[in-house]
């Protein structure tokens, strides 16, 4: 675990990533998953999906 003034890196051992995802999401943009890459990808995909729900429809210019 490493730490500086604005952030810290947190390592946690879990049995699977499914159950920890809601908890990680609840931190919103204050948390970034560094690894495993698969979970990082899943989280990006999930945030994209959430953003698409609320994004104003862009007009074609």
């Amino acid at each position, binding site marked *: 675990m490493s730490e500086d003034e604005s952030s810290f890196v947190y390592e946690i051992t879990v049995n699977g990533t499914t159950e920890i995802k809601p908890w990680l999401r609840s931190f*919103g943009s204050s948390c970034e998953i560094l690894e495993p890459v698969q979970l990082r990808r899943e989280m990006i995909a999930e945030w*994209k*999906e959430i*953003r698409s*729900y*609320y994004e104003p429809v862009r007009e074609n210019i």
Partner: protein
Amino acid sequence: MNLFEKIFNYQLLSRLEDSGAFMVTSHERSWLKTMLEHPAAADAFTADTLSKLRSVLEPDTVMDTSLHLIEKAGTIERQVYHPLLRPLRRHIMSKSGIRMTYEVKNGRVNKGHAGLPYKLEYSMVKREWYLLWYHTRRRAFMSTRLNKIHAVEPEPLNPRAAESMLKRIGNVLESRQKEVVIEIVRAYNEELSRILYAFSCFEKKVEYAADTDTYRVTVKLPGDEMEYLLSKLRFLGKRVRVTKGDYLQSRLLEASTKALERYGVSSEG
């Protein structure tokens, strides 16, 4: 179970309900017996009720959770049952006034203030009980932690005055309510019970539209509880979509945009 059995069971259950009786399973009985061993049980029941419950549960076994459960990283249990809950609930039910001595933020003590209590509320965030009451002289809506109450006594109040005060309180509180509509994204219909569980502490109405196979949850809540609902929505992620509620929609857009920026994904991505 066949249809006739179902009808029979339903009739049996509704008859039991009419007679004021209810059924408990042996699991529930042994759970209750275990709970009665908690130190807070002495505050939660009168001595009479407690000894009656204990004698009724005599033949049941205590649930030994230590064999199967290890609690890790639990939050500190500050308050299970506050001794003031019972008397305050009685005052609320009998629409009685109160005279109360309580501590305010800077440690100052307000002595013998008169008011009308109307609700006991448990904060899921602070994990503590609050009394919501109307301060008669200041005409203000108060929220006081039970832990900050030094003394409280009932004070007779003209029933008609109490009625009209409660009506006014109800109207003001109603006007502060906000309505939010949350749609469950159809692909996650299977997770319905889990999703609804996340909203279990809110006043809500669930509707199902058969033509589109969609569940819609209408939540009514006071404006100051929006942040708590927001945390639940972030928790559920893409399973739900807010279809009515400008504030929540903008906050969720903000959270997702900022999170993606952190991952280095631009808004065009």
